[in-house]
């Protein structure tokens, strides 16, 4: 039973569907919102009610607060689930929801504000003895930036204090590069407003995060770790749980510190504490106060419905007895992205079979709008062992067809086939290394239906494996191995 009668889902795409599915199972009515680019989208069809809230541009629709609140009130919603992106971390939006008697599914506005400010979060982490990378508070001038950069040590990154998704992060390998960076108009403007800070840049770390659940009373629990090191342009594309080759001592430290940071920041509901790990060192980077794209790997591993836990906790329920971290088995997720939006989905084949979960909003004939995140589909697999999960995901991606759209499927397949991934020895530089090795980046389908496919195989050469791309016309059966 839920405290809520009707949920307005202030999002689109797969995450809107994901939330609607949990609501349906728990007997909560659903209201979808959509933009003019999403008429007829699956989340609109699956919801009990739907309301168009604006033009295609997200600023006019999925971030149009008056129209969204108005839709919630007129259609009888008593809670608002923001999903991820758009308004999910907007403290002002959560306050407006509360002011209109709507429960915002997330932490308090204060916790959102705090989590949104990376400098303040660094201080919170330091305050409870959790390591952070050498860095600064907000910086306001060029001399200050240069002086502090010297203290921190190169390479470093200039980051916006607020904002996420890797946007606005600038890298400087050495002082000359940093001086050049400071000359850029955009950077100067951000310095003048004091909205940037410096942080030492760890070379080729692992990105490991901890899923936490917390109730309004402050009871906080870590329910699983995820390795999200496989990234392209700071965009996660493969996530797995548990992180491979992570020793128990490190796992215990990350779990303990995630709970500490979460508690110290007054966080509640479902969120993620992110760390960079290198060797025996680890550093807190941020707290994401929302459901994440990769929550699914923890779900299939633990059997928890994290969206439900989030809703329940937002409604004031207390934490129950959750299965602790270290659930048996292994889960891996691959995110399939459109390389070039604006095209229409033709032939569509979903993977299936044992241990495979597919989260997607795609259907045949739907358009991939330019306006939003180009995530098309998440394929999540689960198996008793990591080796089994990797093989299963390769099999599942082999079954997947998204016709008419250029996707990153070839890259995902190449990653899964790589020796580094197979052995579980990888870091955030893996994709770069692979692409330098000549991996095909995209899979394109001509309008005539002929598929030019990139297939990547391992070649045993003197004990070392290399990646070789082979183009094969559709219709040739079986994988082409070089």
């Amino acid at each position: 039973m839920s405290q809520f009668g009707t949920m307005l889902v202030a999002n689109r795409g797969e995450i809107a569907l994901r939330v609607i599915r949990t609501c349906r199972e728990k007997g909560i009515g659903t209201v979808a919102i959509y933009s003019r680019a999403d008429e007829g989208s699956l989340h609109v069809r699956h919801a009990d009610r739907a309301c168009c809230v604006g033009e295609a541009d997200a600023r006019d629709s999925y971030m149009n607060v008056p129209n969204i609140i108005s839709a919630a009130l007129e259609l009888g919603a008593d809670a608002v689930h923001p999903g991820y992106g758009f308004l999910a971390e907007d403290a002002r939006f959560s306050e407006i929801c509360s002011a209109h008697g709507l429960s915002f599914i997330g932490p308090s506005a204060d916790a959102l504000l705090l989590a949104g400010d990376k400098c303040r979060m660094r201080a919170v982490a330091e305050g409870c003895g959790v390591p952070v990378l050498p860095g600064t508070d907000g910086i306001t001038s060029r001399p200050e930036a240069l002086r502090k950069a010297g203290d921190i040590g190169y390479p470093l990154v200039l980051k916006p204090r607020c904002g996420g998704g890797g946007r606005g992060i600038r890298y400087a390998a050495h002082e000359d590069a940093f001086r050049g960076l400071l000359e850029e108009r955009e950077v100067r403007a951000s310095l003048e407003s004091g909205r940037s800070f410096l942080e030492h840049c760890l070379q080729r770390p692992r990105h490991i995060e901890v899923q936490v659940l917390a109730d309004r009373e402050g009871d906080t629990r870590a329910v699983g770790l995820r390795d999200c090191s496989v990234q392209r342009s700071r965009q996660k594309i493969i996530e797995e749980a548990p992180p491979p080759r992570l020793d128990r001592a490190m796992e215990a430290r990350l779990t303990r510190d995630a709970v500490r940071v979460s508690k110290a920041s007054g966080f509640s509901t479902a969120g993620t504490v992110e760390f960079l790990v290198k060797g025996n060192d680890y550093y807190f980077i941020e707290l994401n106060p929302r459901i994440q794209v990769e929550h699914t790997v923890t779900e299939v591993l633990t059997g928890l419905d994290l969206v439900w836990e989030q809703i329940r906790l937002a409604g004031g329920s207390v934490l129950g007895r959750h299965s602790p971290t270290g659930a048996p088995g292994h889960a891996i997720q691959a995110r399939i992205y459109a390389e070039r939006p604006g095209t229409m989905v033709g032939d569509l084949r979903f993977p299936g079979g044992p241990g495979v979960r597919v989260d997607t909003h795609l259907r045949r004939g739907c358009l991939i709008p330019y306006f939003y995140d180009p995530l098309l589909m998440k394929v999540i697999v689960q198996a008793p062992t990591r080796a089994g999960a990797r093989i299963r995901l390769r099999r599942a991606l082999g079954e997947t067809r998204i016709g008419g759209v250029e996707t990153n499927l070839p890259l995902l397949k190449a990653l899964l086939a790589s020796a580094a991934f197979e052995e579980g020895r990888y870091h955030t530089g893996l994709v770069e290394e692979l692409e330098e090795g000549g991996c095909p980046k995209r899979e394109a389908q001509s309008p005539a239906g002929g598929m030019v496919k990139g297939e990547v195989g391992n070649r045993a050469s003197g004990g070392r494996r290399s990646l070789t791309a082979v183009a094969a016309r559709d219709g040739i059966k079986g994988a082409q191995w070089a």
Partner: protein
Amino acid sequence: MSRRRPVRRLFTGKEAGLPISELEGLVRIMDENRLTEVTVDDGYRRLALKRDGGRPVGGLTAEGDVGGDPLSAGLVTVQAPAVGIFFRSPSPGMSPFVEVGKVIEPGQVVGLIETLKVISEVTSDVRGLVIGIEVDDGGMVEFGQTLLVCEEMDQGQP
């Protein structure tokens, strides 16, 4: 607002072909910058892309379009610019802004929408004879919902 017009191509010279990718690029530029019209002229060929009414590409989902446009030629609509409650008159008891059979002008106030206690005027962007009022007084409207259906009138027509 009417449907998006099909792409009109005006080709002169020998280089008449246009790669679909180039066309996609142009449409993308239009969408991202919210342009309604783009003309490209490189000496050999001229391409004019024009959007009428601003319905974006993404709205053209193929199967079972929810917002199917039942209007025939010559009919135009006034649509809700916000989500909220629609009112036909300035205040309860007063006569409505428009009635069926009346002519409305561009810029004329045809109703009010209350969104979170803020009341905004709905103005017409067409000149036409009102033949249908599609929403009840005090009813909820969503963004882009049809409020009035009119027979389009040219500026010169009485």
